[in-house]
C-alpha cells in the first residue's frame, strides 16, 4: 500500500471517530446544559479540540498531496458570503455558547469571486477555530474588493497575535515545535492562498494587530 492510501484511510478512520465523539458530545451537552452549565462549557472546549484535530488531519493529508503534486484545486465563481456562512456554520454551537458575537459585512462589489470554495472555507474555518480561543467577545468578518483583489478580513477583540506568530509568515520553512502552535495551519493557509492566481498575481494571507492593540486581524487576499 502506498503512503497516500495509508494516510487517506487513517484520516478516514480518525474522522469517523471524531464524527462519533462530536455527535455524542453534542447529545451530552444538550442534556446537561440546563443543570450543569460549567460542565457543558468544558465539554464545548473539548469539542473545539476535536475540530482542531480535524484541521490537523486535513493539513497533514493536504500538504502531503501538495508535495506529491496531487493536490487538485477546483476553481469556480461563488458568492463569497456563502463561503463565510458555511465556515461559520461549522462553529455555531460553540460561538453561541461562548457568547461570541459574529458580524459579517460586505463592501461594494457584486459579491461573487473566483476561488476553490471548499479550500477557502477550510482556511476561514481554521481561523475561526483559533479566534474562538483567543477572542474576547467579538468576531468580525469584512468582505470587500480592493483594487481588483478580494479581501476577507477577520478581526477579533482579543490580545492580538504574538510577534513570533506574525513573523512566522516571513519564514514559512521554519515550523516551530517549541511554542504551542507549530504554525503548520498557517503555512497550509498560505499555500492554499497561493494556489489562487490571476495572471501574474498570487493570493496570500497576512497577520496583523489592530493599531489600538485591541485584537488580531487575519487577512486573506485573493486576486
Amino acid at each position, binding site marked *: 500500500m502506498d503512503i497516500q492510501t495509508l494516510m487517506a484511510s487513517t484520516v*478516514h478512520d480518525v474522522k469517523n471517530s471524531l464524527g462519533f465523539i462530536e*455527535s455524542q458530545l453534542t447529545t451530552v451537552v444538550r442534556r446537561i446544559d440546563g443543570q450543569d452549565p460549567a460542565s457543558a462549557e468544558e465539554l464545548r472546549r473539548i469539542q473545539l479540540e476535536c475540530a482542531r484535530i480535524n484541521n490537523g488531519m486535513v493539513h497533514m493529508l493536504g500538504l502531503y498531496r501538495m508535495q506529491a503534486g496531487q493536490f487538485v484545486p477546483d476553481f469556480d465563481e461563488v458568492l463569497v458570503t*456563502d463561503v463565510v456562512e458555511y465556515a461559520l*456554520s*461549522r462553529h455555531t454551537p460553540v460561538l453561541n455558547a461562548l457568547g461570541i458575537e459574529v458580524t459579517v459585512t460586505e463592501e461594494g462589489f*457584486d459579491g461573487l469571486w473566483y476561488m476553490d470554495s*471548499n479550500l477557502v472555507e477550510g482556511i476561514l474555518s481554521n481561523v475561526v477555530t483559533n479566534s474562538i480561543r483567543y477572542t474576547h467577545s467579538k468576531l468580525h468578518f469584512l468582505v470587500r474588493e480592493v483594487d481588483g483583489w478580494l479581501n476577507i478580513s477577520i478581526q477579533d477583540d482579543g490580545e492580538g497575535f504574538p510577534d513570533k506568530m506574525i513573523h512566522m509568515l516571513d519564514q514559512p520553512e521554519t515550523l516551530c515545535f517549541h511554542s504551542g502552535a507549530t504554525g503548520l495551519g498557517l503555512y497550509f493557509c498560505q499555500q492554499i492562498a497561493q494556489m489562487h492566481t*490571476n495572471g501574474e498575481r498570487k493570493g496570500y494571507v497576512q497577520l496583523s494587530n489592530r493599531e489600538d492593540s485591541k485584537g488580531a486581524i487575519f487577512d486573506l487576499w485573493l486576486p
Partner: protein
Amino acid sequence: MEFSESQNLKALVVDDFATVRKSIKAMLLELGFQRVVEAFDAESATKAVSNSDFDLILCDYNLGKGRNGLRLLEEWRHEKLVKQGAVFVLITGDTSKQVVVSALEYQPDDYLAKPFTMDVLKVRIERWFERRKVMLPILVQREAKDWEAVAHSAMSVINKHPRYRTFAQKQYVESMMQRKRYSEAENFLHGLLEKRVQGWAQVELNRIAIERNQLTQAESALRKVILSEPNLTDAYDCLAVALDKLGKKEEQQFVIDQAVYLAPQNIGRLNRLIEVAIENHDFARASQALKELIALSAGTMHESIELYQRYIRSLTEEQDLTESKERKREINKEISTTSQRMKNRFGRDINVRLFNEAISVRSSAEPDSLKFTPRLNDLFAETLECLEEVNGLTALMVSSTYYRADRFADGDDLVRRFSKQFEDDSSILNELTDLQAEPVSLALRQQAHSLNLKGIELYETGEFGQAIEFFQKAMGLSPRHAGIILNFVQSYMKLMQQSGTNQLIVSKCREFLDRLEYLPKDHDQYSRYKKLDKRLMKLQEI
C-alpha cells in the same frame, strides 16, 4: 421543492459506519425530515432508491468493498433511479473534492467533509434545495435536448440568480455549441474573459476553433491553458481532439494519459485512452488501462463480457509483440485468470464459453496439431448453432482461431457468415475483412510489411530474383496478403519475360494466386488480381 416544506421530505443516508448513519439520521429528523432511510452499502442503497423516491441523498464516498459513492450517483442518474429534483451530496472523509473531481459526467450537487455538525447541515440543505430548484428547468430541457429552451433558461438564471451564474454560463455556451451558433458562443465567451481569465471559458473558445478547423492554433492555445491550470481535465480532452484531427496520434495518447492520471476514475476517458493506444499499437498501455478499467467497473453498470474480452484480446496482441519472455509468461497467467473471472461473472453466456474455448486452443503452442481437431470441430458446430447470439469480439476471436490452426476454409466460412451478421457494424466488419486478408498476429503483419517494402525496392531497381526472395519470406509470415502475393507473382512474370516461360514456376504462381479467390470485387487489389490471373492463364495455355 423548498426546504421549508421539509415536513414532507424523504432522505436517504448511505454510510458503512452505523454510528455515522445514526448521527446523520438524528440530525435530519431534527431538521424536520419526515422519513430518513439508512443504507450501509451499494446494494442496499440501490434497493432503497429503486423502491422509493428521495428528495435528499447523503452518500459516503468510501463504502468499503464494492462500488463507491460516485459510481452509485452515476448509475442512479443514468438509470433514472432518482428523480431529477433529488439532491445528491457526496460525503468525503478527507475533505478533498479533488479525489473525485471531474470523475464523471454526473456531478454531485455538493461535497460535504466529515465530520459535520447539524448547523452545517442546516445551512447547506437550504442552499441545496434552492440550487436544485433553480437548476431543474435547465436539467429537464437538457435531457429533452431542447437547446433553445436551455439557452433561454440559462440567461434567466444569469440575470436573476448570481449565485448560480457560472453554472448557467456553462449551460448557455453548451446550448449555443449544440446549435452550432459558434459566433454567438464566441462573443459571449470573449465577454467573460475580458472580465477575468477562466480556464473553462478558454477551453470552450478552443473547442470552437477546432470546429472551425483552426487546429494548430487550438493546439498551442490549449497547451498554454494547461500550463496555467494543470488540473483542468477538460483542457486535456479538448487538446486530445485537436491532436487527433492533426494526426498526432502519439501525442494524443500522451495527453489523454495525463488526464487519466489526474482523474483516474473517469471511465469514458480511460476508454478513449485504450482506443488510441490500440490504434498506436501500444498494447502494453492498452492492456494496463483495460486492467484498471476492469478494476473500476467491478460490480458497476460498466462491467461486461465485452470488457473482459477486450482485455484478453489486447493481452494476446501484446504477447505477440513483446520481446520479454517474462512478460509473455505473465500474460499467459493473466489471460487464464481473466478468462476464469469472466466465467465466474458471466458463466451462462454463450459468448463466454465460445471465447474461452477459442482462447484455450490458441494459447497452446500448436493450435494446428491433430489433438485439437475434435475440439475445433465442436467449437465450429456450437458457433454455428448460436450464431445470432455471438458478439463481435467473440466472432473475431473464434474466426481467427481457425486461421491460426490453418483451417482456412472454416475461417473463411465463419468470416462470411459473421460479415452478414455484422453488416451494420462497420468496425467489426472492417476487422473481419482485415482478418481474412491477413489472418496473422499484428507482430507478423508488421514484419511481413517491412519485408514486402524491401522486395518492392528491389523490384523497382530491376532485381526481380532478389525481390522474389523477400516476397516469399513475407508470404511465409502472412500467407494470404493480397499485395504480397500479387507482388510475388508479378516479379516472377517479369523474370520469365527475360528468361523464358517455365511451367514449374507458372504452376507455383497459380497455386499462390488461387489463395486470393476470397478477394471481394470492391477490394483495392481486385483488378490487379484479375489482370495477373488472365496473364497467368495465357502462360499456362502455351
